[in-house]
């Protein structure tokens, strides 16, 4: 059994499989397919789908719903992520489990609504004030869209933070033939809730407190301001420092748990290709087509950077090639891990995809 479907459909299936019962979004190409499918399908399962009056409204609704007990998702593209910015910070500060789909298109600004890009890879990482970690997963194809959407919901629950599904126009809008067993039922991610104790316990820093839902049990508070473990606003320096170290440590201390990647190791390979998202297909083809052995790394958990796994893959390598549909945004993460190795980019920002041949030329 095979199906001919697009990534938007796979993302919606993944969300429903993961127990998503709240969606809010605003029309924007190339993410509108997710909005339309959610508006059609979610009410049939008893969930709520709302088309907001803009992106600020859409993510705001998701934050409210998530803190009241829903499993929430929103979807947009670069201009919409720009409007999400303040609320991404609110979700980080309020430790809100939330899945945000970014279907990347060429920027900046309006850019190219139907033009593929990977220009948001650093933007989702640093897209709100303050500079705290987020998690981002990057599907390479339609089947990945399903699997990684479920995983994004798991990680959102596990770490109580916004998790990005960093996709792009081609992966989401281009239908592909997919084996039906790509859509096996996956367990609904566990949720740990509590209605007694401190709702935002942040000592020890790396632990994640159980979700205390607003309006359940104790009078749970919520704030975007610096706060203590009860969400009471504070100006007490040591408390503020403990809070902020917690917001970073709960993600940074669990990189291995979050890491998702494929490592194609080849005996005798001195060149490693590092790709993510839509370029993964060209990376795999380049490895196959090459006359000499090439190693490859497909990074699915782009944030936090899986540094140990990348360092492991760099063993025995003296040249790294990083193909990206931007001017080398993720390459800088590889460069800081690569030591003295030569790191070269293969970069396109003209709306076309990178071909295996272009990658092979850079490996020579």
């Amino acid at each position: 059994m095979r199906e001919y479907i697009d990534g938007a459909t796979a993302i919606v299936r993944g969300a429903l499989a993961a127990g998503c019962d709240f969606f809010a979004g605003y029309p924007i190409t190339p993410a509108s397919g997710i909005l339309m499918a959610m508006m059609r399908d979610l009410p049939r399962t008893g969930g709520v789908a709302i088309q907001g009056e803009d992106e600020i409204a859409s993510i705001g609704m998701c934050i409210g719903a998530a803190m009241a007990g829903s499993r929430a998702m929103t979807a947009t593209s670069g201009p919409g992520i720009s409007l999400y910015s303040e609320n991404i910070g609110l979700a980080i500060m309020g430790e809100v489990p939330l899945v945000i789909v970014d279907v990347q298109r060429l920027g900046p600004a309006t850019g190219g609504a139907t033009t593929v890009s990977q220009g948001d890879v650093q933007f989702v990482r640093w897209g709100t004030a303050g500079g705290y970690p987020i998690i981002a997963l990057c599907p390479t194809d339609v089947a990945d869209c399903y699997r990684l959407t479920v995983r994004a919901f798991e990680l959102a629950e596990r770490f109580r933070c916004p998790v990005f599904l960093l996709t792009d126009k081609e992966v989401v809008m281009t239908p592909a033939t997919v084996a039906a067993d790509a859509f096996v039922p996956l367990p609904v991610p566990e949720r740990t809730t509590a209605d007694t104790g401190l709702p935002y316990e942040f000592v020890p820093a790396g632990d994640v407190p159980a979700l205390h839902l607003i309006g359940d049990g104790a009078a749970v508070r919520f704030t975007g301001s610096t706060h203590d473990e009860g969400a009471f606003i504070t100006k007490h320096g040591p408390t503020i420092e403990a809070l902020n170290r917690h917001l970073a440590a709960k993600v940074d201390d669990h990189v291995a748990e979050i890491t998702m990647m494929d490592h194609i190791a080849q005996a005798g390979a001195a060149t490693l290709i590092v790709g993510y998202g839509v370029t993964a297909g060209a990376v795999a083809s380049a490895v196959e087509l090459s006359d000499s052995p090439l190693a490859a790394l497909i990074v699915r958990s782009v944030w936090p950077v899986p540094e140990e796994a990348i360092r492991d893959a760099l063993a025995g390598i003296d040249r790294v090639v990083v193909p990206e549909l931007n001017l080398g945004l993720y390459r800088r993460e590889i460069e800081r891990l690569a030591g003295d190795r030569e790191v070269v980019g293969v970069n396109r920002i003209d709306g076309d995809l990178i071909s295996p041949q272009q990658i092979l030329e850079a490996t020579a």
Partner: protein
Amino acid sequence: MRWPVPEAEHMDPGTLGCQGCGGALSMRLVLKEVGPDAIAVLPACCWSIIDGPWPLHALDIPVFHTAFETAAVVATGIKAAKAMKGEDPTVVAWAGDGGTFDIGLQALSGAAERNEDIVFVCYDNEAYMNTGIQRSSATPAGTWTTTTPEERPEPRPKKDIMGIMAAHRVPYAATATVAYPGDLAHKVQTAVAAKGGMRFLHLLSACPPGWKMAADQAIEAMRRAVQARVFPLYEVRDGRDYTITVWPERNVRLEDYLSLQGRFTPLLADQDMLERVKADVAERWRLLVERHEHSRRLVGTGR
């Protein structure tokens, strides 16, 4: 009312508009009246595509493509800077219903409240047509769109944007449609002449692909919208003085308007909802006539 309209064109033929696009027809006619000194500010909307890529762009006036939520405020900035230099162009913010009723409303409200010296034109095709027919708050009750599927059509009436603008007491606000070109031309002339403050034009603009109808029915659909009192043509001065400019003459029923368009299939199939919509149309028309008559009684009172 002056007719015919000026011969000078500021929009070239061969745009990327769909056949029968009310938005394209509206732009052509409005620019004839505004003239060559216009500066257009376009947020994300069909017109950000219709204008076309170089060298096939359609408009021969300066065009500022801006972010979705910023038509009114970017127009405000342009006008302020031009005024400081002693120049007086007509700055026209030209937005769809999404960029007016939804994401653009905050900026529009701010500009209206400050009484900015701009002309804001909303060409209203009653959904997000450019991104694939998603509902907006301008979508009327009972409508199918891709986000209000047939099993759950739009449940709520269209947002009363003219009421919102009147509540801001803007100097001039008017509804119009290219199906009544003389009325539209006159209102554009009035708006352009009313320099110094906020002017708002609400243009019903048929969208054959989104309204699910034949392209050659676009003008007839807009005409029937007026005749069936779904989209009355009127103007409001200072938020108080209402004047109905085109009185329905033909005996056009609501169903005659709805049945031209496939998007109203769910409404026509739901007798209860249809009755509610009919009652709503009648009530709104009655209120408008009352306001019109009330405004006539006030003439000469020195208010």
